[in-house]
């Protein structure tokens, strides 16, 4: 079975946030509106974290795209009382919107703060319906959601491969963010496939993971900026 992971080359990331926009479109992420946004209720499966280093005028901006790390030992899965967030067979930490009771324990337990909650019924089905991606379910009020590595695309790619009578190859399936990145800073694939681009990138001496000391074993790696 595959073990999907991602590598993001921070040396290439320009902070353009095309990944963020692509994700919102692909996954029918609701627009919460200015009032709710002011209260801190934005839903962003992928967000650009910015860090300013140094003192003015010698500042440097660091851009770090943050989204679900799809940990191999996910703290959110441990605490979910009903199996709504769960570890899939290919390493994707899934979210079952029908099962979720909205207790937000997983939101509180995630050390990366990458889970979002539907505080209201944000998506008017009628309106969004015209623009919605039919492959992704629209979430109701009161449930948690987060990045799924565009698992619906994986399902599509698997079916295509089966129809063509072959195994899935590296690059058959990429999430929307990876596809959209104009700087080609994001690499996605099967970490267990030694020949894949992502496995090679993850092996780089410049690769690191966020909050590695916590032991969550995130499958999203970052490559340090190199001069």
């Amino acid at each position, binding site marked *: 079975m595959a073990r999907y992971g991602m590598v993001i080359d921070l040396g290439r990331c320009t902070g353009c946030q095309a990944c963020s926009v692509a994700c919102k479109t692909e996954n029918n992420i609701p627009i919460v509106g200015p009032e709710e946004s002011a209260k*801190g209720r934005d839903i962003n499966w992928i967000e650009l974290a910015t860090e300013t280093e140094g003192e003015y005028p010698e500042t440097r901006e660091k851009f770090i795209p943050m989204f679900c790390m799809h940990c191999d030992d996910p703290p959110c899965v441990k605490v979910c009382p009903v199996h709504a967030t769960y570890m899939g067979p290919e390493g994707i930490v899934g979210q079952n919107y029908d*099962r979720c009771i909205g207790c937000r324990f997983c939101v509180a337990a995630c050390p990366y703060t990458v889970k979002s909650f539907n505080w209201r019924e944000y998506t008017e089905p009628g309106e969004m319906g015209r623009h919605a991606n039919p492959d992704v379910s629209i979430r109701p009020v009161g449930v948690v959601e987060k990045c799924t590595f565009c698992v619906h695309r994986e399902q599509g790619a698997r079916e295509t491969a089966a129809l063509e009578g072959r195994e899935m190859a590296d690059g058959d399936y990429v999430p929307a963010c990876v596809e959209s990145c104009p700087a080609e800073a994001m690499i996605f694939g099967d970490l267990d496939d030694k020949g894949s681009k992502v496995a090679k990138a993850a092996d780089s001496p410049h690769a690191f993971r966020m909050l590695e000391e916590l032991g969550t074993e995130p499958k999203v790696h970052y490559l340090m900026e190199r001069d």
Partner: protein
Amino acid sequence: MSAADPDAALFAPIENPRPGFYAIVGLLMAGTAFGVYCWSRQLRMGLGETGLAMPVSWGFYVTNFVFFIGISHAGTLISAILRISQAEWRRPITRLAEFITVAVLAVGGLQIIVDMGRPDRLLNVIWYGRYQSPLLWDATSITAYLTASSIYLYVPMIPDIAMLRDRGTSPKFFYEVLAMGWRGTARQKRILSRAISILAVMVIPIAVSVHTVVAFVFSMTLQPGWHSTVFGPYFVVGAIFSGIAALLLAMIAFRWAYGLHAYLKEVHFNYLGILLLIMSLLWFYFTFVEYLTTYYGGEPDELAVFFQKWTGPYAVYFWAMGVCNFLIPVLILSFRRSIPAVGIASVFVLIGMWLERFVIIVPTLSRPRLPELATGHYLPSWLEWGELFGSFCMFALIYVLFTRLFPIVSIWEIREGREEGLHDVESRLKSYLPDYAESGATGDRS
């Protein structure tokens, strides 16, 4: 039945409720209804009606949950521990205490349902529950505690219910059924005594487990300020602390409302006041150790949360907590444990303990390990205040309705104290002193 029943005051609230009773019930029902309205509004419009957002996704409701469940330790401490240690002064207090436990567990459990984004899916916890999750430990433990406390409330009430049955108090059928055919025969007394003894011993570890697993909801995560080994015992100590304060306030309220001055005497308040003082010191000890360890260690994320409380946006709550939980109670209770003094101290303790739960939950969420992603200050909405108010009213309503049906002071245990207690205590004292033989204590009436 003697004409001048010395315990007439204990039957009066049941057999002859004054108009004031109905007025209070009316007010409490109105308060509860307002709380229900707040929740119904939230059901219609989503949790967005609260002040919650990212990153503070838990606020008032989870604070209330921990707070109310914490108060439930009143019953166990007083009733079970004092019963087992044969402390005679517990006699008029046990039922007040035991009933707080049952009422407050019910109200506390409701807080979690109010906090859920999808309460319509509550049954998912039953069908699909996972015992790796601390929430399931909570569900099991609280169910066990509610069950055990209800039994531990009811069984010692049986002789009193039998008295009400024999007096023909209405509703007659109700008391006849619940009296379980009690006649006070020797065999029945043995059965009751044995059952109460076993329950008293059983209910203590169950109670300890309840607040320990509530603490585990926080300490089993990796979040700074939560992932601490002291949380289990810390929450239990805090629970006992707030439980005693709640019990003292209940005693004061009903002593005044039902004229129980003969039963709830200065000495009872004095002893509970001493226990409250001890718990305040113990609470302070745990709190001091926890924060000193964090500060001295200096781990950056932990320190960031520490400063949220020490000097940051939550400083006013943190310092108010210290004043209410430690400074004021110790200053008052070290010197004066009169009824008003103890009452004032208890009010401050309840406020302080609510603040303590808030100060544990919210600052950690407000300053995550990766603060670049989400920041925000939590301010509860009027809805959350309304729900808190309604919850208090509901608890008081349940309690007051209970006192309308059952004697709030255990009449048969008072009588047992009059008839047998004096002798038991005398022979026990003699067995401790060198001048007497190792006298076997007469009976084991705990």
